[in-house]
Every structure is written in structure tokens, then in C-alpha cells.
């Protein structure tokens, strides 16, 4: 049987960070990743933060990858961070850039497919030197300990092998946690459901529309009626020449009031402010005359398709900051446009261009982080350990996972040096490192300085909209001393005691709606986007079908009935009073996992995201 020092299960941003750090320390580690290639299974919002905590130290992305700032394919540095409260066509906006910049070196918008492949590239040579590396297309099925206590890894694809330690970086729907019994599945109380679309817009139009230059970007957050009465909200982040637009809702509030995820995202896209953000010029084909000979119809179809493709490519290039010859591109573009119009009767209109639909659960670290993130010689990191930070509209999972992974790698390297992989020497030590992490503090208690930034931002918010319950509290909290005392009190009492107050419909729905109605500006849209249907969205995705389903319904419960509505790919239907699953088209989000036997698809199978 083959032997390796460390197996890292999952090649997302967390697992890749573990490999990099272990390789930096000269240790042998292999990543086993189910996806067809690194990055194809990972999705995020996403803003990747680099943090400078007041107390304690974290390893930031640029500490681990020295050339991150010079070489990595991040999208834009987010320099504007604005929260919008919506009610129909009215919007009340608040600038929260100060909260975004709080204790941050930077926050970059990122797309996970590109970014994770880059991370992987940074580790290949160095990990190879120590006999390690990355193995894609392999799905880990079981981890067991034999009679001599040796750790055996079994997969669906390759022969079993032995390791000394395991780092579980297999994400929020961690099978490792379940198969070894390290923790129970996360509950709906502990999770959010994230659904996202990628919209394509040329770079220069983004710059102009969002008032940024090519290196800068904007983040827009949404609450109010776009939530359709759910706890959570919407986001729009600018990438280089795409937008990441998504909704993130507390799973519990979705179960209470089930609304189809794609309806939730459509509602955001239809908001007049968002519609205006996403619009673009698009060519509209003339209907082909059905009386023409078949061959002629085909010729026209291919001809138009080819021209439109080259129009899109040329325009994208022309409106990007990276080309050298503006004049040449301009005349090429007008030549193509001319041909489209004169040869094929193409006209131009306004719409939006959606490229990718995706979904995944997000763990709320303040509710579900593993208090002891280890089991025997397995260390859990990032989403797998339930470690994500939700503060206000901000989500931090990427930076937390990277820092966790470095801590895990350090603990494992120390165990290798002493050849001691006992719980006490490895697991407890890692747990201690995690307790020391400033991110753990963020998940444990309210930071009064961060709170102040929010309060400052809301200073000008007319208090009449804030309601009886919050008005007096806000007033009280605006006083530095009183706020200090209140926060201390809350932290003694337990942060978790006040979640229900912060995360309530009042905060995400009612107050924003009132604010917008009473004080918002009217934003009107010049068109209404032709929003893709769910079927069109699924059709745009790449899949490798597996005839074996990776999900099995365990019982026909109320929960499963709700999945008929809450599965973002509509994989569940009702037939003769029973809930039926059709796994084809599954986005692997994990929403249905709580009451199913849920696995990731076998190696290489399932969905392949292009953006993430």
C-alpha cells in the first residue's frame, strides 16, 4: 500500500493553502479533489479580504502566496461599499466603505475557478519536491483506522493508501466530518443559502457605471423588499468584466417561508437599480424566414451566430483596458456591426447577459464553528469546520479558511517532526491555535469598534424609520461609554443571546423597507431584463453526468417537501404524494443534505463551474 505523510481532502482555497504551507515547511502532502480540475467546484461571493486584526495575528493570502499582489488573477480592489434599502422603485443608500475597510489591508473581488487554479499553480513545483502534489478527479469515500491504528484513505477512483494525518478541507457539506462522526450535520439555524449569477459587461462600461477605474471596484449590498421577507440580502460585486450578483438567506427563514432560490435572485435582478447596473447592448437576431430552403436557413443561422460571436469578442476587447490598438478595433467593430445589420437584419437593444448560475450553503461561524475542530488525527479547516464570519452584510470565509489551513499545516508539520499524531499532540494543539485566532474572537463576540462604524454610518438615518424597538437602542449605542458597557454586557451574556435581535426580519426587511419608502430616491429603469428561466440557466452549465445518484432521500418528511421549492436546481418533484429526486442538474449546494444521504459526486462527475 502506498504511504503519504498528509492527505488534504478538498482542493478549495482552504485545502490549497494547507498544501502550500506544508510544502513551504518541507512536508509531503497530497490534495485529493473530486472536481475535474482545481477550481471547478468552488464558488464564492466573493470578496477576499486581507486583515490586520487589533489583537493577534492572521496569515493573509499575500503572506502565504508572496506574489499574490503582482501575479494573481484577482478581479478588482473594492473601494466602494454601499448598502441599499429597497422598496419597489425606491432606494435609500448608505455608504459603508468604512466598515469594509475596518481592520483590512484590502478586499479584492475574486472568481474562484481562476483564483484556485492560480493557487494550485503556486504549489505544484514545491509540493512535488517533497513527493506531494494535487490529484484531481478523486473522491474520498472513507477514512478508517486499522488494527494497528494506521489511517487508511479509500476513494472511488484509486487504490487505498495510508497517511499519518488528514486535513479535512472538504467544505461546508463535509463528508469527512460525517463519515468519521466528528460532528453532526449543520442545522438550518446554522446555515445560509447562497445563490449567485455571473453577468457579463465590458470592463470600461463597468468603470463608467460604477465610477471606478480599472483597478478599483464597487460592492453594493441590498436589503428590504428584494428579500421577499427573508433574513439576509443581496450583493453585487464588480469583477474585471463581469458582475457577481447573488442572494444569501438564512436557511431557517427560507424553511419558514419557502420561495424558490431562482425567484429570489430574479427579484434582485428586477430591482430597478440592479437592472440598471446589469444592462448592456445586445444584438437581436431577425427571425429566419421559414419558407427559405433548409440549407439557406442553416447558412443564415451559422452566419449570424459567427458574426455575433466575433462582435462580442471584438467589443469586449475594444472596451477593455488591455488592448493596444483602439482605432483598429473600433473600425473592426463597426465593420462587423455593419455586416450584421445589412446582411442579416440584426438590430440592437438593451438587455443583460447572464453566464453562470451557482449555489452553495454558507456556514455561520458564530453558530456552528466546531469548538474542537479535530477528530483523532484529522484536522478540520475553513467551511468544513463551520468557520465563516457574518458581520453585517460582510461574509468572510475565504480568508478564514486560508488562515485556518496554515494553522493546521503548522500543527501537522510539528507532529511529523516529533512523529506524534496523537489527539493530544496534534489535535489539541491545533485546537489551541484556532482558539488563538482573531477570527475565532470575531465569531465569539461583538467588536465594539466595528459596531461604532456601523452606528456612525447610520448617524444620518432618520430615526423615525428605525422603529420603536431600535430607536432608543441606537441612541444609547451612539454614546461611546454606554456602547462600551453594552457590548461588554452582551459579550458576557453571550453573543448568541442577541442573534435573534440582530438577525431578524426587522433588520433585513421591515426597517429597510420603511427607510426606502420614507426617505428613498426613486430609481427607474429604462428597460426590463429578459431574465433567464431556470431551465436556461441549467442548460448553460457544464456537467458530467453520473448515472449513480450522489444523493439518496432518506424519508419523505416535511423538510423534503420543502426541497421541492428550495432546491435551486429544482431536482425534487412530487409524484403521487411522494418526493422524488432527479439528481441530474444538481448544483451540489447541499441545501437538501440535512435529511438525505448526501455525498459529493464521484471524481470528475457533476457540475463544472467556469467562474465560481
Amino acid at each position, binding site marked *: 500500500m*502506498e504511504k*503519504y505523510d498528509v492527505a488534504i481532502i478538498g482542493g478549495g482555497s482552504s485545502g490549497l493553502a494547507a498544501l502550500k504551507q506544508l510544502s513551504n515547511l518541507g512536508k509531503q502532502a*497530497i490534495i485529493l479533489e473530486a472536481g475535474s480540475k482545481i477550481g471547478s467546484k468552488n464558488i464564492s461571493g466573493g470578496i477576499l479580504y486581507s486583515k490586520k486584526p487589533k489583537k493577534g495575528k492572521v496569515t493573509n493570502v499575500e503572506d502565504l502566496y508572496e506574489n499574490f499582489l503582482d501575479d494573481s488573477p484577482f478581479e478588482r480592489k473594492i473601494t466602494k461599499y454601499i448598502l441599499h434599502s429597497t422598496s419597489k422603485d425606491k432606494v435609500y443608500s448608505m455608504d459603508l466603505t468604512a466598515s469594509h475597510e475596518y481592520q483590512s489591508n484590502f478586499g479584492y473581488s475574486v472568481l474562484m475557478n481562476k483564483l484556485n487554479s492560480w493557487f494550485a499553480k503556486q504549489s*505544484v513545483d514545491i509540493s*512535488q519536491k517533497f513527493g*506531494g*502534489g*494535487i*490529484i*484531481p478527479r*478523486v473522491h474520498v469515500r472513507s477514512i478508517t483506522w486499522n488494527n494497528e491504528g494506521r489511517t487508511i484513505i479509500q476513494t472511488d*477512483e*484509486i*487504490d487505498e*493508501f495510508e497517511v499519518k494525518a488528514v486535513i479535512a478541507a472538504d467544505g461546508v457539506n463535509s463528508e469527512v466530518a460525517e463519515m468519521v462522526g466528528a460532528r453532526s450535520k449543520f442545522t438550518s439555524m446554522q446555515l445560509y443559502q447562497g445563490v449567485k449569477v455571473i453577468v457579463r459587461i465590458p470592463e470600461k462600461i463597468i468603470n463608467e457605471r460604477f465610477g471606478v477605474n480599472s483597478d478599483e471596484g464597487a460592492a453594493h449590498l441590498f436589503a428590504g423588499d428584494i428579500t421577499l421577507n427573508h433574513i439576509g440580502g443581496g450583493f453585487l460585486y464588480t469583477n474585471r468584466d463581469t458582475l457577481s450578483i447573488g442572494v444569501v438567506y438564512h436557511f431557517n427563514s427560507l424553511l419558514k417561508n419557502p420561495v424558490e432560490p431562482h425567484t429570489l435572485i430574479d427579484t434582485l435582478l428586477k430591482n430597478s437599480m440592479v437592472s440598471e447596473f446589469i444592462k448592456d447592448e445586445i444584438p437581436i437576431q431577425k427571425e429566419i424566414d421559414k419558407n427559405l430552403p433548409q440549407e439557406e436557413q442553416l447558412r443564415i443561422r*451559422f452566419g449570424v451566430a459567427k458574426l455575433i460571436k466575433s462582435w462580442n469578442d471584438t467589443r469586449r476587447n475594444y472596451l477593455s483596458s488591455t488592448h493596444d490598438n483602439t482605432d483598429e478595433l473600433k473600425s473592426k467593430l463597426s465593420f462587423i456591426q455593419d455586416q450584421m445589420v445589412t446582411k442579416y437584419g440584426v438590430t440592437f437593444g438593451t438587455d443583460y447577459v447572464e453566464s453562470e448560475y451557482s449555489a452553495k450553503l454558507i456556514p455561520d461561524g458564530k453558530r456552528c464553528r466546531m469548538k474542537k475542530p479535530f477528530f483523532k488525527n484529522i484536522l478540520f479547516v475553513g467551511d468544513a469546520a463551520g468557520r465563516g464570519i457574518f458581520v453585517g452584510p460582510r461574509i468572510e470565509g475565504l480568508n478564514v479558511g486560508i488562515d485556518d489551513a496554515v494553522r493546521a499545516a503548522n500543527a501537522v508539520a510539528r507532529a511529523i517532526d516529533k512523529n506524534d499524531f496523537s489527539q493530544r499532540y496534534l489535535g489539541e494543539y491545533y485546537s489551541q491555535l484556532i482558539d488563538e485566532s482573531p477570527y475565532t474572537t470575531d465569531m465569539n463576540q461583538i467588536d465594539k469598534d466595528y459596531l461604532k462604524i456601523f452606528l456612525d454610518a447610520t448617524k444620518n438615518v432618520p430615526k423615525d424609520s428605525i422603529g420603536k424597538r431600535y430607536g432608543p437602542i441606537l441612541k444609547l449605542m451612539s454614546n461611546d461609554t454606554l456602547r462600551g458597557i453594552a457590548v461588554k454586557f452582551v459579550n458576557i451574556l453571550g453573543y448568541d443571546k442577541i442573534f435573534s435581535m440582530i438577525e431578524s426580519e426587522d433588520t433585513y426587511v421591515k426597517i429597510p423597507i420603511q427607510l426606502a419608502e420614507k426617505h428613498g430616491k426613486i430609481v427607474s429603469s429604462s428597460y426590463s431584463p429578459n431574465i433567464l428561466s431556470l431551465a436556461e440557466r441549467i442548460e448553460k452549465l457544464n456537467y458530467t453526468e453520473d448515472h449513480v445518484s450522489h444523493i439518496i432521500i432518506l424519508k419523505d418528511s416535511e423538510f423534503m417537501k420543502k426541497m421541492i421549492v428550495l432546491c435551486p436546481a429544482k431536482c425534487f418533484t412530487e409524484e403521487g404524494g411522494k418526493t422524488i429526486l432527479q439528481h441530474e442538474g444538481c448544483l451540489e449546494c447541499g441545501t437538501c443534505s440535512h435529511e438525505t444521504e448526501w455525498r459529493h459526486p464521484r471524481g470528475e462527475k457533476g457540475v463544472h463551474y467556469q467562474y465560481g
Partner: protein
Amino acid sequence: MTLLNIAVVVKLEPDFSEGSISYNPDGTLNRSQTKSTLGPHSKIAAQAAFYAKVKYGAKISIGTMSGHIANSALQMAMETCDAEVLHLYNDKIFAGADTIGTAEVLKKGIEKMDGKMDIVFSGHRATDGETGQTGPQIAWKLGFTFLGNVISYDINLEKRTVTAKRLLSLRGISDLIQEIEAPLPVFIAIDPSYKYYFSTASLRLTAEKYQREAHERANNYKDRLQTFDSEELGADKTLVGLVGSPTIVYDVQRVPQGKVIRHAEILDGSNPEHIRKTVTAMREALNAMVIK
């Protein structure tokens, strides 16, 4: 460890998948107008070579006879199997060659490759008007054992033999798998159903390493490309090109629509006699499937 020395002969073919085929008025393929790619069967041959490289360690050379537009095919082949050497055999006098004229050029080319070959791979056959004879003819000219329709193989480095599974289709019987052992050197024409599989972590790591290397190499494939004309190959002008091709094409027809012919016998599932007949037939078929 001495590495295996492997050659892959590949072919540039029209890209049927693009729907971009173009015909001359006389019905023959208009090659200059048709987009080209590495033939799908050639790609599988390169994959088969890659398997040996990962599993046993090998030096791979690729050869093709074609015009200069073959470069992209060579690049693709290089990316598929992480070859070290690319050969392009290009001369006006090679034009109009049939399979035997082609085989002569490729044989000469293989002999120009560094060292003596242990295995030569070729695709099953080309998709554009070839009859699957080039492979056996090269093998015959080289004096190598020819193994056709190979669906999987392994090598015993000590004994210097290859064991291969061949897919045989015989009239009236569904597919048979024949397992054979032959001493190196061999010429393997790979079956279209061939797919390599690496079953251990270390093989997967090695495959990943070579795939990355292949990607780099393919980006700079010109550094490893050598071109030969008939003189440089030392080819006998009477054996190559049109002159060396005894085939006479007397008619060219468009690809005919395939007719489905099936002999079906309708059996009644409730009739025990019919069931017995079915089971017997299935048993016979199963018994006939694997011949060692």
C-alpha cells in the same frame, strides 16, 4: 532504468465536428478549405503512449507526414502525450500517396528517430478515407509484430514483452476479447475504445506532472520540431508519394447513408421454450466472449 523508446505516428484530419467540411465540385474533400485537427484516433494513440510514459517511463517521439499546417496537430499530440521529439515529413513528392506510400515515409521517419523503438503506436485508422492498412504496412516494413484493435496493454520490462487485450469483431458473434503476449518491439494500432486509467495515487501524481510538462512543451513545440524532406529521410523516390502508390482510385462517392440491418426474432416471454432458447443463446455468447 532504461526508458522505453516510443514512437507515435499521427495524422492531421479534417475537423468534422465543427461542421466546417468543404467539398470540391467533384465531391472530393477540399482540404485547403476544411479546418484540420489531430485525428481523433491519432489522439487516442498518443494517449496510449502517455500511459506507458506514466507507468513505465518512456521517451516519446511523434511523427507525421503532412503539409505545414500539420503543426497544430503535432502540438496537440505533444500536449496529449508529453512527447520530447516532433517529426514532420514534408515534401512535394509525398503528395498523392496511398497507404503503402505513406507507410514507407513513416517507416523512414521512425528509423530517423533517436534510438531503436520498442513500441510504435498508431490510431485505429483515419476518419477521412483510409482503410486501416497504414499501420500493418509500417509494422511489416519495420519488421515489428503488429497488434491491432488493442484496448489495453501492459509491459513487462524485465521480460521485455507486452501483454495486450484486443477487441475482435467476428461476424455473428458479439465482441470478443483476446489476450496476447508478444516480445518487444511491437507496433500497436490502438482501438477507439481505449481509455487509460491510473489506479494509484503515485501514478496520478506522475500523470499530473507530465501533463503540466506537456502543456509547457506544447506551448513551445517549435523548439522540438524537426522537419524532413525526402532527401533528408533518405527515401527511395520510387517507393513514396504517387509513384510509390499502386492504388488506383476509379470512383469517388459521397459518404452513403448507413442502412440499419438487424435480424430480430420475436420471442414470447410467457413461453418456456422461448425463454430456454434465449438463455442458451446468452450462455453461448458469454462463453465465447473471453479467449485467453
